């Protein structure tokens, strides 16, 4: 069909659809003027338009993709002595649910193995691994309660950890160096315990580390990577997923050179992966991230990562040395025992705490001392803090009617931000500013005088309240708690 003809069909179709159905025939008679093919084509399209209704392509593509796996168990389903409450997540090996143990009246997490892993050989190895992992009793390792079977479903019941994975934490905010070290110490202690018992993890990565709300870190999925690989395959390569375009989506980024090279990994392979995780939580960057899995593997085998200290000047040199040692290409140059690694890290943490106690932090700040105790409003506080810690947020504005405590909230948020922004946190009063154009100048003056980066928890609302005209200014359009690209630099 020629494109002119197709354009003509589109026009006639559009006109016809605008008409009441009973008037269409007459319109088509005149528009197609004896061209039977043309008329047939348009009529056929009108029919499919009506069949399609508003549903077809009515929502954009991803909205029609439903994200609940089809086999998801509904709340109330019984598996063994557990009652499913809700789904927590899904991975290649199966789904994880929050469930309730009726006998012991406690909540647990249940991982139900997908049928793909339920062949006899895999199950046997799975049981072996899970049994040895369940013997591990350490606060930094998720406790396995039971391996069970209900009909054809095999499951593991384990300790329920209320918190976020380290990956989730890394995506949403920057970790202060003290918190990064605290997490590292706990992971190292959990690993040391497992290694002492002769168990290696093989798939250590931020997705497998849970940080509970109270700060306790738990390692998940000990030894399961080994089980996940099909029989006879080069076991550790199979825990990665390579897309057709070769993008790195899986664990290839946290492999050790032994794993990348197809050699047999031992506990020192976990030390390497741990070094990569530590490098990432301290610098915010993956040490060997490349655009394809193959390049990443080559980098792991041959290249040296950018020095940590140059990416985060706050990283204490001894910490950089620990990471360098973990990232040695040859296993024999890493730690002889993971216990030593944990002790090194604990010493770094204690030294840092000691320094801070002796020299309490004198970070630049002009924040006024609040005259009253701040009570409640935890949600707003958490939301504002969360936004400020995101890398892509430059400006957070708080708006609302006068007198509801916006300044007090801003001050409270700012006080909590001091530890995250080493260059300082400043309160810039804008109450006296009546011309929106001068906001930037006032902030810039602070910036120039102090030459610090300013977190402007700006009291822009004063401007709105006092001069209605200013509300027309672009800055005034920011919705409450919105982050925007055009604010003053706040990171």
């Amino acid at each position, binding site marked *: 069909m020629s494109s002119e003809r197709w354009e003509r069909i589109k026009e006639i179709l559009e006109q016809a659809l605008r008409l009441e159905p009973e008037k269409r025939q007459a319109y088509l008679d005149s528009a197609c003027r004896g061209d039977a093919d043309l008329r047939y084509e348009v009529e056929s*399209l009108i029919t499919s338009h009506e069949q399609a209704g508003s549903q077809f392509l009515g929502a954009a593509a*991803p909205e029609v993709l439903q994200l609940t796996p089809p086999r998801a168990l509904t709340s109330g389903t019984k598996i063994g002595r557990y009652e499913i409450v809700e789904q927590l997540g899904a991975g290649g090996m199966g789904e994880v649910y929050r469930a309730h143990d009726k006998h012991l009246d406690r909540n647990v997490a249940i991982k139900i193995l997908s049928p793909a892993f339920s062949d006899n050989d895999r199950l046997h190895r799975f049981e072996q691994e899970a049994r040895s992992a369940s013997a591990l009793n350490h606060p930094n390792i998720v406790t396995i309660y039971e391996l069970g079977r209900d009909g054809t479903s095999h499951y593991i019941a384990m300790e329920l950890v209320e918190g976020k994975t380290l*990956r989730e934490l890394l995506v949403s905010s920057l970790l202060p160096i003290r918190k990064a070290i605290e997490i590292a110490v706990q992971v190292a202690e959990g690993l040391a315990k497992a290694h002492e018992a002769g168990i290696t993890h093989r798939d250590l990565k931020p997705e497998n580390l849970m940080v509970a709300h109270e700060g306790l870190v738990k390692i998940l999925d000990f030894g399961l990577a080994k089980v996940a690989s099909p029989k006879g395959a080069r076991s550790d390569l199979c825990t990665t*997923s390579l897309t057709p375009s070769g993008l790195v989506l899986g664990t290839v980024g946290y492999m050790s050179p032994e794993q990348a090279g197809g050699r047999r990994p031992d506990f020192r392979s976990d030390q390497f992966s741990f070094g990569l995780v530590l490098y990432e939580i301290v610098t915010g960057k993956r040490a060997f991230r490349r655009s394809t899995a193959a390049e990443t593997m080559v980098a792991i085998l041959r290249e040296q990562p950018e020095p940590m200290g140059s990416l985060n000047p706050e990283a204490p040199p001894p910490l950089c040395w620990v990471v360098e040692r973990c990232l040695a290409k040859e296993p024999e140059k890493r730690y002889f025992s993971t216990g030593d690694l944990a002790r090194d890290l604990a010493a770094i943490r204690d030294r840092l705490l000691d320094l801070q106690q002796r020299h309490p932090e004198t970070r630049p700040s002009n924040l006024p001392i609040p005259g009253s105790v701040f009570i409640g409003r935890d949600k707003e506080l958490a939301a504002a803090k969360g936004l400020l810690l995101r890398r892509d947020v430059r400006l957070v504005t708080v708006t609302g009617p006068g007198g509801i405590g916006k300044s007090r909230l801003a001050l409270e948020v700012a006080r909590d931000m001091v530890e995250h922004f080493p260059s300082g946190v400043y309160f810039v009063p804008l109450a006296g500013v009546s011309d929106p154009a001068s906001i930037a100048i006032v902030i810039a003056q602070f910036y120039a005088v102090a030459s610090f980066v300013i977190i402007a928890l700006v009291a822009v609302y004063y401007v709105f309240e006092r001069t209605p005209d200013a509300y027309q200014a672009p800055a005034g359009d920011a919705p409450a708690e919105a982050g925007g690209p055009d604010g003053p630099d706040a990171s």
Partner: protein
Amino acid sequence: MTRRDPSQVTQLLQRWRGGNREALDALLPLVYDELRRLAHRHLRNERTEHTLQSSALVHEAYFRLVGQDFPQWEGRTHFFAIAAQLMRQILVDYARRHRASKRGSGVCMLTLGDVEALPLRKDLDVVALNDALSTLAELDPRQSRVVELRFFAGLSLEETSEVMGIGTATVQRDWTAARAWLHREISRRSST
């Protein structure tokens, strides 16, 4: 945490706008990577909300890759034009993998942390849509681009019109005809 240097993407966008075809080749994997990463992040984190907003995804990718470096609308139009194509590729890949896993063809689905396959609602076969759309592109390339932008990137009528530099009336006409044409094409293919 893996945010790219925004100026890299900005420069590539500028060079591409200036007619440099190689810049586009360099740009595609960067944008693909970011969209894909964001999609995965959404899949992992949004357990309670069972839908993923594609327009939100594309806008977030734009912000992360380009940020405030490139305030002009032109930069956004070029970016969205690419993002729409890539979203199509990503979603069709998901759908294909889902098909494959349903047939139990033994694909390597072993990542512990990733959601590998997305179930699709029965009433829309993304793979069939993709095939039909490729046929439509031979007949009318502009129309197939409208579908990419509206359906795969989730752009509004107005955004689509700006990205393509054509009037909203034309976009609307193309969109209406494309829906009818695609629906007919998919029904014909599935009945044979």
